[in-house]
Structure formats: structure tokens, C-alpha cells
């Protein structure tokens, strides 16, 4: 296992598109590092540069204490799991698992032992003699993971490995993946566009956009204080409410009389965009709370454990997360109130976090 450093990475394709602008990442030994972003943000390109499948235009990649720029993928001692698994269709599961070991010319006894170990760990023993085409998506996924594991590589690279699974299986595999990663205490770089996956898995998350790093931090850090409006929109479901507000005496005031606690360090009179999570709002009956901002329930989603209200107010449509005990019907007039500590606020021009 080893740490992975990405230093001032830039990747420009021959047709002129710049996939990665200038990226610095330091991934610690044993860390599960998630790169999150929409398609075309450069996350997969970065991963392929680390793997050696793409050659960086400039910059440096270090795996362990070795600069790997210019080395072939096979010389980098890393393993990768692809979105479509890329299991060799003409080989049995056993031969698929043994493939990297045979490539390394390990003795047959060791190959058997490692393959059996991986098969046991991933519960693949019943399928060893089948071809990948005869397996379900989840089983194929486990074979791909097993093939990456057997060689005990310095780092694992995962390129959206769970995208092709159905929702239920995805949650199972997510847990299994995290379990395997912790058990092997391996360095893992995990690329995804699914923010739930990123939150659930990552020790740290790097949010990328247009080839640049938007924010880097632990999942809760990223969730609580997105560094930019882009990150604020990307993390969280339903997304963060972004509300234009003005700083008045001691708090933020938005249209329609909605008041929000103000963070320290911003000037009175300044116009900002406040990022308020749906769970930091409450809706209540105007009869019991006549002072809150008025709104109308535009839609509601009862999810069982919680209910999501979309409330139309003068400050715009607000997402509000409420416990299932709250019962408001559609079109009902309600009042919305912010509760809890001050939310992160953003400068409308720079779209970056201001204040403390």
C-alpha cells in the first residue's frame, strides 16, 4: 500500500479540449479517496492518468515514493476496476482472477492460494468455473473487485464501479466495498458522479468541475460548508436551498420576511447567497407561528421516514425536510422558519464562501 500524489496535473487532448486544468491531490496511505463531479469534469481523466492509460500533458504523479510518469500501466503496480468491469469474456471466473498473477509469473501454488482467498472473501466460490457472461451484475462486480485484489497492488483505482448495478444492489456493494477496503487497509481512489456514494464511502471527497478542484474535504465538512456554489448544488438530495439575502441587524433577511441566522465576518448591507440545507428549515401552521415567512406547499414527497416539502415563498421555491409527523397538504398555506446555526454564505459574484 502506498500514498498517491498528483502534482500540478494538466491533461490536454490532441483536439484541444483541456480535461484537467491544474490539479494537486495528496492521497494518504490507506485512504478511500473519492473524486466526485459531473461527467466531463476531469475525474476519470485524472484516474486514467494515475493508471497510466493517459499520458499527462504536464505535471507529475507519484505512487509510493516513485515518480511513475512515463511508466507503463503494468509497471505502476496498481489495479483498476472499470465501469463495465472489463472481465475477460473468454476466460472463466477463476482464470479472470488468476490473470494478473499469471501476468506477474507467480508460481501456480501461490496463484491458487490467492485466487481462493479472494473468492472466499468475495463469496465467489460457487462461480469459479463459470464464464463472466453467465453471472449477474453484482457477481460480475465482485469478480472485477477480486481481480483487482489478488495482486495486492499499491493502490486501487475505481472508475464508477457501481453505476451499472440496480439501486438495491448498489447499496449492498457499497457496504461490501468499504468493508473490503478497510480490511485490506488499501489506498483507493474512487471516481463517481453519485454524491450519495461519495458521502457514504469517502474518507475524503474531492469535488471537481471543469477540470478544476472545487473543494476537498471530509464528507461532513463538504456537506456542512460547501466551498463554492457548485459544490453546494452538487452535494445533498434534495439539494441545498440557495437564497439571496441581505445582511440586516444580526441576521440575514430574504424576500418575504424570511430570516436566517447570519455568520460572523460579513458586512451589514452586503448581499449574499445563503446555502440552507432542507433540514434547517421547518414548516408550521400559520396559526401556531404567525411570524414566519408565508408560503404555499407546492408539492410534498412522503418518503416514510421523512417528508420533503417544496414550499413556494417570495424567496423562491424552498426544499424543506420534515419528520413524518408533520402533515401538511398540497396548496396549504404554511410559514417557513430557519432554525439552528448560521448557514454558509456565498458571494454572488465569485460564487465562493464568505465569512467564517
Amino acid at each position, binding site marked *: 500500500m502506498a500514498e498517491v500524489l498528483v502534482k500540478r496535473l494538466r491533461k490536454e487532448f490532441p483536439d484541444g479540449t483541456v480535461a484537467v486544468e491544474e490539479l494537486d491531490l495528496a492521497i494518504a496511505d490507506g485512504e478511500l479517496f473519492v473524486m466526485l463531479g459531473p461527467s466531463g469534469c476531469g475525474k476519470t481523466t485524472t484516474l486514467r492518468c494515475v493508471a497510466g492509460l493517459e499520458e499527462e500533458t504536464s505535471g507529475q504523479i507519484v505512487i509510493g515514493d516513485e515518480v511513475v510518469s512515463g511508466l507503463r500501466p503494468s509497471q505502476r503496480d496498481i489495479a483498476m476496476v472499470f465501469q463495465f468491469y472489463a472481465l475477460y*469474456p473468454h476466460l472463466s471466473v477463476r482464470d479472470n482472477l488468476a490473470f494478473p498473477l499469471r501476468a506477474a509469473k507467480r508460481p501456480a501454488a501461490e496463484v491458487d492460494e490467492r485466487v481462493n482467498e479472494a473468492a472466499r472473501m468475495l463469496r465467489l466460490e460457487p462461480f469459479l468455473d463459470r464464464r463472466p457472461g453467465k453471472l449477474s451484475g453484482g457477481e460480475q462486480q465482485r469478480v472485477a473487485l477480486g481481480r483487482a485484489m489478488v*495482486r495486492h497492488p499499491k493502490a486501487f483505482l475505481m472508475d464508477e464501479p457501481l453505476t451499472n448495478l440496480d439501486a438495491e444492489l448498489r447499496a449492498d456493494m457499497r457496504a461490501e466495498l468499504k468493508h473490503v477496503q478497510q480490511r485490506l487497509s488499501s489506498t483507493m481512489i474512487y471516481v463517481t458522479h453519485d454524491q450519495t456514494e461519495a458521502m457514504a464511502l469517502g474518507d475524503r471527497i474531492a469535488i471537481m468541475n471543469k477540470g478544476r478542484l472545487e473543494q476537498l474535504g471530509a464528507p461532513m465538512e463538504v456537506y456542512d460548508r460547501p466551498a463554492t456554489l457548485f459544490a453546494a448544488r452538487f452535494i445533498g438530495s434534495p439539494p441545498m436551498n440557495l437564497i439571496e439575502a441581505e445582511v440586516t441587524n444580526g441576521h440575514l433577511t430574504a424576500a418575504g420576511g424570511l430570516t436566517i441566522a447570519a455568520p460572523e465576518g460579513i458586512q451589514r448591507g452586503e448581499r449574499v447567497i445563503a446555502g440552507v440545507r432542507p433540514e434547517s428549515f421547518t414548516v408550521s401552521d400559520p396559526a401556531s407561528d404567525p411570524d414566519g415567512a408565508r408560503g404555499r406547499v407546492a408539492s410534498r414527497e412522503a418518503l416514510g421516514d421523512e417528508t420533503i416539502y417544496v414550499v413556494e415563498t417570495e424567496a423562491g421555491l424552498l426544499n424543506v425536510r420534515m419528520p413524518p409527523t408533520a402533515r401538511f397538504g398540497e396548496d396549504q398555506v404554511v410559514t417557513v422558519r430557519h432554525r439552528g446555526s448560521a448557514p454558509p454564505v456565498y458571494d454572488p459574484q465569485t460564487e465562493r464562501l464568505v465569512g467564517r
Partner: protein
Amino acid sequence: MAAHIQPSGIADKGIAGETAPPPVRRSRRLGSAFEIALLALLAVVMLFPVLWMLETALKDTRDIYAVPAKLINFGPTLDHIKDVFSADSPVFSGFKNSVIVATASTIIATVLGVPAAWAYSRFQIPAKKDQLFFILSTRFMPPVVVVIPVFLMYRDLALLDTLQGLVLVYAAFNLPFTIWMMKGFIDELPAEYEEAAMLDGYSRFEAFWRVTMPLLIPGIAATAVFALIFSWNEFVFSIFLITDPDTRTAPAAIAGLIGGTTIDWGLVAASAMVFALPVLLFAFLVRKHLVAGVTLGAVRR
């Protein structure tokens, strides 16, 4: 035309545009009877020369000249077919040469063409499209147009009347075709397989050899059969570049049977049947892949 793509009855009723009601049963049956009659007639017309050839090959020499022609009640014999393979047969060495030339030229075209197709499919190559167009453009020229320059070159190089010369021409003609057809197959194969193999510890070429090659075998078989059929059937180069009876190929040898004072029609027909057989056999063996190859890109993963 939809009926050719999809068996009737399976077609989705809901597809936009296909709102016409299904035809009434009786008119359909009438229609199909008419169709069958028409198609049968067409088949007889189309296949008549082949059937006649087969009959002639199996007829007694006397019955070949019988007037009116004996369609069914002829004296059957295998003598003509035996003659094709006999020691003093004028066509047997032609068959032998055809086998050598077709096999050698196909092997050369495949060995050169498959890696070339792989490179064109997988790597960034300057002016790739232009290069591929240039390669294809060598097939635009009808053989008759290039045969004279080739003849002159071969005369200087002492390649006339040699099998090597013919192998070279056929390989050159098959190479563009092999590259184009194989490129289609390789484009269909996800590059991820090779990338996975590269990360698993192999070099680029090893990855190609161990992962891509085994998956390409059906495609290679189909392409090779096409090349084989071309080389086997080729006539123009064969007749121009080779005059020596010892080195000419089967098409030229069979053509050579016609034009003497007496023509042994039985032998001509039997030779033609023997000549047609390998092509039919190969085409039958790889028929599934032939269709896939022709439609380039319709291969199921």
C-alpha cells in the same frame, strides 16, 4: 422490408408509424401462395445454370449431347469427377496451385492486416481518416486496369509465371479489405479489455495478444474466408500473369479446357463443381459471421 429484420408477429404494435391493421388472414394466405410460386420460379431461373452444370458433371458423355436433353433419365457416372483428380488431368495442378495461392495470400493479408486494423482502431494516428481512405482507394481500381503495369513490373522482376507473384498480388488486394473489415470488428470490442490487461501487468502488445486476439477469432475467421474466396475466384490476374500450365490456377485451367478442337464438357462441368465446392463450404461454415462482417458493427457483444 421489416419482415426481413424481424420475424412477423414479433413486431411491436406500438411502434410509431406501424399503425396499419394486420392483413386479413385469407388474403394473406393467397398472397403467400402467389409469393411462393413467384419465388420458386425465380429460384429455378437463378439456379438453372448451377443445376445444369451439376447434371452435366454427373452425366454419361453420350447423354451430355443427347437431344432432346435428358433431364432425369440420364446414365449417371462419376467418371468426370474422377478425371478431375486423375494423374493426367489438365486441371488438377490448377486446383493444387489455387489452394497454395489462396491460402498463402490469405495468411499474409491476415497477419499484416489484423495488427494494422488494431493500430488504426486503438491509436491516435496522424491523418488517420485519410490513410484509411487511401488504403480503401486501392480497391477502387478494377483489376483489369492495373494488370498491365503489374505485368510489366513482374516481367522485370521475373515474377511472371510464378505462384509467388500471384500470392503477392492477391495479398495486396486482400490487405485493404482485411484492414477495413477487421477495424470494424475491433472498434466493436471495448478498449477496456486491453486496458484491464495492461493494468493487470501486460504490455500493450501482450494485452492485444492475450485478450483482444482470442475475442477477435470469429471476426478473423469471417475476414479470412472473404479473402480466401476472393483469391480462389480471381481470374484476371491469373490469366494475364501466368501462361505456364504448371503454375496456373484453377479458374484459368478450367477456362483453358474450352477452346480446343473437342471440348470435354463433362470434365468442364465436373471441374466447375469441384471448384465451387470449397467456397460454398466455407461460406456455410462462417455464415453467421459473414453477415455480421458485412453489416460491420452489428456484432453482438
